[in-house]
């Protein structure tokens, strides 16, 4: 039917309908309005922001601005939280007489949870910046300029809005694919959506990048987001070519651009809070629970771990488990602690940082003993791509209603993460 219509009309039916609609509008307008067609400030700005050559570079520059704002401006605020948790940890170690309880509070709760909570400032600043871009009307333009490139690659432009939402959290991103009419396009967008770097991954990048990438930390974080977009586009293209189910041209994307507006501080702060509070809730529930489990596994059997003057986490349950899974990650230069962190990151990506905190690797100095700049970057890439978090897997199943696509997402992402991390280690190693 769609093919016959296209043949009859000479182009996609949606495009023809939109064209006709605007034809009717332009016929009516001169009859009811007098004078020249006015050029608004929004029109003028669009001349530059939607420019064929400048549109995408401006989008990239604004994204870079957002990440430097997120990363560098929040640094002293994160330092303050870090100092507060360190002091609390010292106090609890000193004043709690019971050794096991003191270890739980100081190393488990304050060490683990504290390592995650220092990322409140960058996460809130990221949402602050995203809210400005959204409320001003720019994000719709971003979707438009990226669509132009995506459609040339055979992808559905409507996919970009769920992908942009994925920067906040993959769950609303995946749910937003419901706006895509064609089932094949919708499933394809769901499959690549977890590659968009959600805010839960930001703490991992800031944590590892800040410790091992030195002056390139902000660039490292920015690259992760660009890599996420690039991979999502490439994988979608690959799936469309390789999987018969997705073959065919994507349906046309028609987007009505809103007028630019000056965002109000109230709406920006409200949006920032609405999104940021999800992180706080997560910290008080899933991450807290994960902290307790990880601390227990890293502190017991108590006698073995605390046999010497310093606790030996390698002798704990988590140490034993880490050594079992370490061979899988060894080729990437990750030791058992990094392997364990990735394993628990499956619950929620912030738990990666939480695990490092509980394992006593909460500081930059300690992290530099585990990662070199190359393996640190490989770890960041691995975190970006590998298995989505538990909640995202649940939503992928619910939205695709298929175990086949859910398992496919988990498997292809793990393989892709492994391949890219290996590539970084090999290339980085050869460059010295």
């Amino acid at each position: 039917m769609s093919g016959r219509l296209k043949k009859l009309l000479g182009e996609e039916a949606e495009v023809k309908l939109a064209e006709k609609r605007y034809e009717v509008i332009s016929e009516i307008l001169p009859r009811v309005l007098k004078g020249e067609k006015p050029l608004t400030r929004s029109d003028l700005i669009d001349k530059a922001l939607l420019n064929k050559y400048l549109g995408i570079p401006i989008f990239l520059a604004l994204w870079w601005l957002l990440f430097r704002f997120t990363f560098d401006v929040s640094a002293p605020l994160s330092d303050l939280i870090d100092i507060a948790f360190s002091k609390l940890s010292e106090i609890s170690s000193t004043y709690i007489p019971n050794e096991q309880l003191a270890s739980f509070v100081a190393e488990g709760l304050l060490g683990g949870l504290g390592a995650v909570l220092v990322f409140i400032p960058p996460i809130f600043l990221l949402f602050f910046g995203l809210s400005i871009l959204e409320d001003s009307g720019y994000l719709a333009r971003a979707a438009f300029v990226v669509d132009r490139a995506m459609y040339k690659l055979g992808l559905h432009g409507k996919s970009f809005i769920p992908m942009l939402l994925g920067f906040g959290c993959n769950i609303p991103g995946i749910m937003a694919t419901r706006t895509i009419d064609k089932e094949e396009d919708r499933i394809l967008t769901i499959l690549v959506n977890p590659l968009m770097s959600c805010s839960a991954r930001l703490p991992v990048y800031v944590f590892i990048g800040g410790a091992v990438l030195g002056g390139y930390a902000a660039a490292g974080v920015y690259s992760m987001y660009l890599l996420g977009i690039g991979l999502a586009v490439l994988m979608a293209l690959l799936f469309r070519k390789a999987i018969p189910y997705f073959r065919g041209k994507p349906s046309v994307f028609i987007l009505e651009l809103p007028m630019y507006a000056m965002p109000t501080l109230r709406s920006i702060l409200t949006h920032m809070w609405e999104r940021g509070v999800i992180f706080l809730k997560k910290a008080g529930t899933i991450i807290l629970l994960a902290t307790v489990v990880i601390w227990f596994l890293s502190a017991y059997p108590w006698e073995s771990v605390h046999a010497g003057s310093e606790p030996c986490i390698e002798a704990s349950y988590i140490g034993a488990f880490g050594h079992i899974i370490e061979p899988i990650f060894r080729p990437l230069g990750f030791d058992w602690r990094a392997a364990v962190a990735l394993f628990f990151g499956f619950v929620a990506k912030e738990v990666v940082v939480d695990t490092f905190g509980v394992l006593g690797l909460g500081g930059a100095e300690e992290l530099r003993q585990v990662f070199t700049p190359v393996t640190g970057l490989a770890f960041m890439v691995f975190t970006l791509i590998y298995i989505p978090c538990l909640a995202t897997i649940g939503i992928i199943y619910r939205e695709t209603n298929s175990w086949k696509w859910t398992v496919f997402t988990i498997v292809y992402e793990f393989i892709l993460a492994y391949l890219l991390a290996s590539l970084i280690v090999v290339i980085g190693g050869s460059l010295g």
Partner: protein
Amino acid sequence: MKVSRRSSRALAGYAIILGSIYLIIGAAEFIAGLWHLLQPEATIAILNLPVDLFGGFSALVIGAAYLGGILLWRGEIESLGFLLVATFLSIVFGLLYFLIVCADGFSTLIATWEGEEWTWEWLTSGTAGPGILRPEIWLALISLPLGYFVIKTTKREKVQ
């Protein structure tokens, strides 16, 4: 509202000068950043400018946006859009680098509370490269008059 030929030429001229400066600075930062990425041991700083790959790229984009306003010279009022966007980018990037310098200062203050000695080093060297001497901060200030004029020109809802 119409922009007189004289005003549009003045605007275009100002934009060409600013755009060229941004392009030179952006190219220098970008090349130095790329060089540093490939040869971390042999860092070069062209004209003492920051070594900043993406920062340089952003400056190049701002420069290109300013130069997009070149057609204003011929009186094409639609080119005002490029100047609007270029001045906006110029000002927000200047503000960003200024905020980063302030954040560096705050970090130094926190370190002082923790027992370290207070220094003024953050003002001229830190996360933003040469601190307050970062050219983009000063270029943002130079862009302000142009931004003011362009906003004033396009203030009325309808530009004809």
